């Protein structure tokens, strides 16, 4: 009976409807480079490219913005992919010997990539009852013949099977077994040996009836499919790796495991051909590695391209990842930083053309995609408009800037263009141009900043579906790093032969781990930014359109103040280069502040209007006036018992070498393993089996019980002094009548320090403020009793909205905050959210997330959610990501739960740590070291692929042109399924009158009321000025969730009043 005491009488239907108009969860698009790619395909007719990954994902890319994603149900590596040219269909082979046919189809008014058919190849002897000996044991190669209606499958056993693609059924009776081929061979070549697996199958562009078959042993056969006979035989003796059939059909190229390739003439002489016309070992004479793939492309201007991968001298360059491009006498050895998966050329595929005329070479590497323009002299690299290797150096932090002003955008773009050696025109030569992007031009420009381990900050255009690199800022030039000597050694001139050319930007090796960027903040109105790093360096930079040479002013701030007895055992601080330094156009450093001890910066914030930057480390925080270049404040937050904080980052004796090794390992190691996928019957069965096994041997569980200690946090827990967040606000700290600049700092142990700042006021009209010192006076110190780390602090104005950014209001880009009073501060800790009144800090509302849900807050952001139903209606809410990977949305300032969704797997710690929210209800998190998943919580603000593709297949009849639209993404290629939880029913459902009032500040009564925050809270919450929370409020809060209804604590606490509530 007591259970029902606090239960609410159902949810408010009006509020429920409003919530559906405001909130919706979608995983929309994956940005960056697919993790662990394993296969590549290109459709020259549609000009689209497909990449398959080791986790079974298929991604199709065309023109920028054209993207399709699919995921195989099986957790298996995609080993081969083949487009059915022009049909928008894709045949994939997985390493579990299953074939899948994917189609880009129209479906119920929306279209997407979906799996049409799948075929598990019979792998057991005798299973395939057609003809005893040849079995379809293991498919090694696939070739589409007859305009894609049929596929030839080469197997390990040396047979070639034929498959009807439209049904994925084997065509009986056409199978070509090895003995049939052996029959046409001379006896001395046969000599009892098998031919080995089929290594290569090549079709002929002009004569689809003929197939070139290459066997592992070296034998090449031209098989006439129509006549069912062997046309020609080439008796190669070298183990075969790959084959290419020249356009005219007169020349064959074969590559071999010893690093040689051979050219065979198909016209001259009679069958069998005993010797190639030419055989060469390009990187001989010493033993070389195999040439894995070779392409031969001829040109109208005469000559031909030979492009091959591998073949490097085993001893000296065996560890390099190289593709060699040879044309006439020109040889370039493209030296990549990661393993080569596959490559293709973009060239003419029309049978009537006499020449291939390759335009571009696309090389898919383990970590990036590199495209070279083969028509421009020097074969320059074409900058990719998407598939950017986000992880070219490991990402250490990220930040999102919304609504970037057009002027700043143009300046950043132009700075980026000056950076890249290529002229902007080469961007237009991106060869993969299939499909059309139907998405509207983004209404606002969004900038994603990523900080990297090597001290760079990369600027990405995150406005649309394609994440486009804009600009790269490097901070390493300001410092003398440890590895400079090593670098100069590496730069020592190499031998002229082979003619290496470094290509690609994936470079995971950090010069010095201290350069790593920890925090980034950018002011979009003044184009000033702050970059803070691992060695306590805080850099204030300013965007300049011109290169310049200038000295950077330096300062250091001792955050330990006069604390004694601490010794820093971590890394030394970076030694900056002094004197004038040349800076290219772009963000140029102005001021460098170094924290002492040089611990990693854990929080940073910038206020450009006041020219102040605040920064915090594990030891304390500081405030610096970068206009006058003088420190304002330093405060130590260390607890006297906290000795661990002094020992340095992470480990006690961490050498540079060790950390290098770690960063190396981190890159090597796939961070995301064991991807969760859609539950199918198989996995259910597995789960059940696993459970059975667990039950069968319970002692195993008993043997090593995982225990958790239940003990409240104490003040002297280690690392309690870490500064977690810093915040500037113009609000009421001294008294309710005067507002002024304030700075807030929150620590790991639940302490919040609020400083009143004395900032000289700028004279009207002048940008700069007078040259007077800024003063800071400690105003309030709040110790949260639950001592959980403070994750975020924000001040809400009289209308319950967060204060705008500096300059935002003064430049008329945001509504001016309500300064009539009634400000409140929202403090989000890892366990609870609390709103306190200002200036008297008394608790007003709160939500105890951990006590109710058992989850802890990881990331928090205030975001504006616009309604899909009403153009002008929007609410500001608190979005929160928990350690379980769930996203919760709370109303502000009422702190009522609105919706929650499961977003990230809870095991994916790096994904949760990397999450960043935008101001309009979207977010990004890393699903692999190289990919950001984009998600949206807003029902209106969704960025997803919206594209069309002119495909032509309808069994060869009319070339119907479908106009396809990519739907909201149904599956995620790389991991978590987009499970959409129903908006939870247990929300507080503030009454609709309240929410309307709270968010339509134009209402005069809300504007004028000194208690407007209170009036903004739902009517059943009555707050009085002393901050006491009334009985009704207790009921309301705790009744706001189903669990809370049962919350015994309240039953006990409110025993005395229970009857009053019951009577109601």
């Amino acid at each position, binding site marked *: 009976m*007591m259970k029902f005491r606090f239960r609410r009488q159902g949810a408010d239907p009006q509020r429920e409807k409003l919530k559906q108009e405001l909130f919706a969860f979608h995983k929309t698009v994956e940005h960056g480079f697919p993790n662990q790619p394993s296969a590549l395909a290109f459709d020259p007719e549609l000009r689209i490219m497909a990449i398959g990954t080791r986790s079974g994902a298929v991604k199709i890319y065309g023109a920028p913005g054209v993207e399709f994603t699919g995921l195989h149900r099986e957790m298996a590596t995609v080993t081969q992919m083949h487009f059915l040219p022009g049909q928008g269909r894709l045949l994939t082979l997985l390493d579990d010997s299953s074939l899948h046919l994917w189609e880009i189809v129209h479906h119920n008014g929306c279209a997407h990539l979906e799996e049409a058919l799948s075929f598990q190849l019979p792998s057991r002897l005798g299973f395939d009852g057609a003809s005893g000996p040849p079995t379809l044991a293991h498919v090694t190669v696939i070739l589409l013949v007859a305009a894609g209606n049929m596929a030839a499958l080469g197997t390990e056993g040396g047979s070639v099977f034929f498959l009807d693609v439209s049904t994925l059924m084997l065509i009986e009776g056409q199978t070509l077994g090895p003995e049939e081929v052996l029959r046409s061979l001379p006896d001395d070549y046969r000599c009892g040996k098998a031919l080995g697996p089929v290594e290569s199958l090549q079709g002929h562009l002009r004569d689809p009836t003929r197939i070139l078959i290459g066997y592992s042993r070296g034998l090449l056969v031209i098989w006439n499919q129509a006549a069912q006979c062997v046309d020609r035989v080439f008796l190669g003796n070298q183990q075969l790796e790959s084959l290419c059939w020249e356009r005219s059909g007169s020349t064959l190229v074969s590559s071999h495991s010893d690093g040689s390739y051979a050219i065979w003439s198909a016209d001259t002489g009679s069958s069998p051909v005993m010797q190639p016309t030419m055989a060469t070992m390009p990187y001989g004479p010493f033993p070389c590695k195999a040439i894995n793939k070779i392409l031969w492309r001829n040109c109208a201007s005469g000559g031909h391209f030979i492009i091959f991968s591998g073949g490097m001298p085993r001893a000296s360059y065996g560890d390099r990842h190289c593709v060699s491009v040879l044309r006439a006498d020109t040889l370039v050895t493209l030296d990549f930083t990661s393993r080569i998966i596959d490559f293709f050329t973009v060239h003419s595929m029309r049978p009537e053309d006499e020449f291939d005329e390759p335009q571009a070479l696309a090389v898919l590497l383990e970590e990036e995609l590199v495209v070279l323009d083969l028509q421009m002299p020097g074969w320059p690299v074409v900058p990719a408009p998407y598939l950017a290797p986000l992880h070219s150096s490991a990402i250490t932090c990220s930040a999102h800037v919304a609504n970037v002003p057009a002027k700043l955008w143009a300046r950043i773009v132009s700075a980026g263009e000056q950076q890249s050696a290529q002229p902007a025109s080469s961007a237009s030569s991106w060869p993969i141009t299939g499909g059309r992007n139907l998405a509207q031009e983004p209404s606002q420009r969004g900038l994603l900043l990523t900080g990297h381990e090597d001290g760079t900050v990369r600027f990405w255009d995150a406005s649309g579906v394609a994440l486009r690199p804009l600009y790269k800022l490097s901070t390493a030039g300001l410092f003398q790093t440890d590895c400079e000597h090593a670098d100069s050694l590496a730069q020592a001139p190499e031998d002229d032969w082979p003619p290496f050319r470094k290509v690609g930007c994936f470079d995971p090796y950090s010069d010095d781990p201290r350069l790593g960027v920890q925090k980034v903040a950018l002011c979009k109105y003044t184009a000033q930014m702050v970059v803070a790093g691992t060695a306590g360096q805080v850099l204030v930079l300013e965007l300049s359109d011109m290169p310049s040479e200038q000295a950077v002013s330096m300062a250091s701030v001792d955050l330990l*103040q006069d604390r004694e007895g601490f010794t820093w055992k971590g890394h030394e601080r970076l030694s900056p280069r002094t004197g004038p330094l040349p800076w290219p156009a772009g963000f140029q450093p102005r001021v460098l502040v170094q924290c002492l001890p040089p611990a990693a910066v854990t929080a940073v914030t910038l206020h450009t209007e006041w020219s102040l930057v605040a920064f915090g480390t594990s030891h304390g925080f500081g405030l610096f006036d970068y206009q006058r270049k003088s420190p304002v*404040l330093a405060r*130590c937050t260390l607890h006297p018992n906290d000795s661990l904080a002094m020992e340095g980052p992470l480990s006690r004796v961490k050498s540079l070498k060790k950390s290098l090794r770690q960063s190396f390992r981190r890159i090597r190691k796939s961070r995301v393993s064991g991807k969760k996928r859609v539950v199918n019957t198989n996995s259910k069965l597995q789960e059940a089996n696993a459970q059975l096994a667990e*039950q069968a041997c*319970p002692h195993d*569980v008993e043997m090593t*019980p*995982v*225990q*958790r200690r*239940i*003990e*409240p*946090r104490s003040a002297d827990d280690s690392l309690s002094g870490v500064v977690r967040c810093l915040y500037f606000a113009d609000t009421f*700290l001294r008294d309710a009548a005067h507002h002024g600049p304030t700075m807030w700092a929150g620590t790991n142990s639940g302490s919040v320090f609020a400083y*009143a700042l*004395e900032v000289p006021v700028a004279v009207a009209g002048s940008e700069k403020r007078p040259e007077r010192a800024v*003063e*800071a*006076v*400690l*105003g*309030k*110190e*709040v*110790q*949260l*009793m*639950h001592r959980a780390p403070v994750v975020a602090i924000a001040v809400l104005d009289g209308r319950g909205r967060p204060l705008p950014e500096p300059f935002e209001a003064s430049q008329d880009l945001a509504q001016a905050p309500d300064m009539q009073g009634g400000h409140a501060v929202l403090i989000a800790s890892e*366990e609870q959210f*609390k709103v306190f009144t200002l200036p008297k800090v*008394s*608790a007003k509302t709160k939500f105890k997330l*951990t*006590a109710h*849900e*058992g*989850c*802890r807050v990881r990331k928090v952001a205030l975001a504006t959610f616009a309604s899909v139903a009403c153009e002008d209606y929007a609410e500001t809410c608190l979005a929160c990501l928990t*350690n*379980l990977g769930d996203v919760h949305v709370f109303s502000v300032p009422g702190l009522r739960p609105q919706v929650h969704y499961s977003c990230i797997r809870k095991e994916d710690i790096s994904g949760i740590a990397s999450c960043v929210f935008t101001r309009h209800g979207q977010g990004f998190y890393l699903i692999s070291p190289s990919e950001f998943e984009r998600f949206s919580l807003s029902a209106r603000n969704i960025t997803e692929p919206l594209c069309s593709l002119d495909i032509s297949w309808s069994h060869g009849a009319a070339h119907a042109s479908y106009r396809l639209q990519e739907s909201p993404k149904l599956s995620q290629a790389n991991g978590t399924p987009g499970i959409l939880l129903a908006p939870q029913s247990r929300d507080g459902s503030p009454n609709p009158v309240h929410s309307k009032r709270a968010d339509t500040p134009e209402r005069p009564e809300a504007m004028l009321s000194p208690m407007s925050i209170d009036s903004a809270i739902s009517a059943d919450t009555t707050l009085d000025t*002393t*901050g*006491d*929370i009334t009985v009704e409020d*207790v009921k309301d809060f705790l009744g706001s969730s189903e*669990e*809370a209804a*049962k*919350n*015994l*604590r*309240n*039953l*006990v*606490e*409110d*025993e*005395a009043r229970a009857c009053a509530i019951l009577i109601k």
Partner: protein
Amino acid sequence: LGRRFSREQLCGYLSQARAPRAGRFGAEFRRFSLDRQKPGKFEDFYQLVVHTHHIANTEVTIGYADVHGDLLPINNDDNFCKAVSSANPLLRVFIQKREEAEQGLATGSLSRRRKALALREEGPRRRAHLHIGLPHDFRPVSSIIDVDILPETHRRVRLYRHGCQKPLGFYIRDGMSVRVAPQGLEKVPGIFISRMVPGGLAESTGLLAVDDEVLEVNGIEVAGKTLDQVTDMMIANSHNLIVTVKPANQRNNVLRGSRAASGSSGRSSDSTASRHSLQAPVPHSLPADDMESDEEPDVVLEGDLEPRSVPRLPPGSLSRVNGAGPASGLHGPGRDSRVLRLLSSFPPDIHHSLALPPGGVEEHGPAVTL
């Protein structure tokens, strides 16, 4: 009126140091020394005290402040010895008129932050009437609650941690529990207590034991939650932890209808009234935050912001504590007081060794050496 004063005097004793002696039972301070090794009998001590204060014909109860600042009674030889041995080196002894103490009103806290404390009455049985209710002179450490709404196989235990320096002292683990389902018995994952820390609060209550299955934490079911989630929930509620367990040993269950026999721990629900009597009184306009009465309020320290010209406030010079703790300025001098406070010290140099909060007590009373 008297009730209110007696409470305030206890919490605001700091300010009474300068209070002039008003009436017979105004605050009065005496200092004397005792032999730490041989403190003697309680009777002698009692005589000494009443003699020293010239209140020989008044019945008083004697209490002392232990190391945690809690007011504990001295009423027999044992706790007298304990009190003397806990002196560090000063022992603060509090004397109160017995009638007052027995009204159960004199409960209070030396420091407002620690709410639970009580003055032990001496010999309530000697009184004509019997006390019905929780003995209010004990500090509760745990209770069994909600016996009437829970199945008999379950037990809901509340652990009080206020002012207690003991660790909560238990560990939890994953395990499998057997449930009766429509299909028969089925095994479901559960959370169990895996270990007790010797001397911890959980062990000392005797209400929780190893292998007890945890069903709820503060009213929220743990079914479907991971070990880490439950850990976080328990720690988040650690100031007032209510765990519903299914004891591994089902023989000690509280039986329905025999509540009277089960004593205080068998009360159907935790009495709010008794909790309130244990709480420190609210002396001024503190937020009487009933919702949060279970939890310690956040401490807000205010910097001295009024003089705007102050260049910079050195950290640490925060002037006053707002909203928590005995605000030193709030209890002005001259308040009528009915508590005798007696500072008995062993070494003579008490000024150096007074383990008192900052703000200190100035000694005016004559030092009595015996």
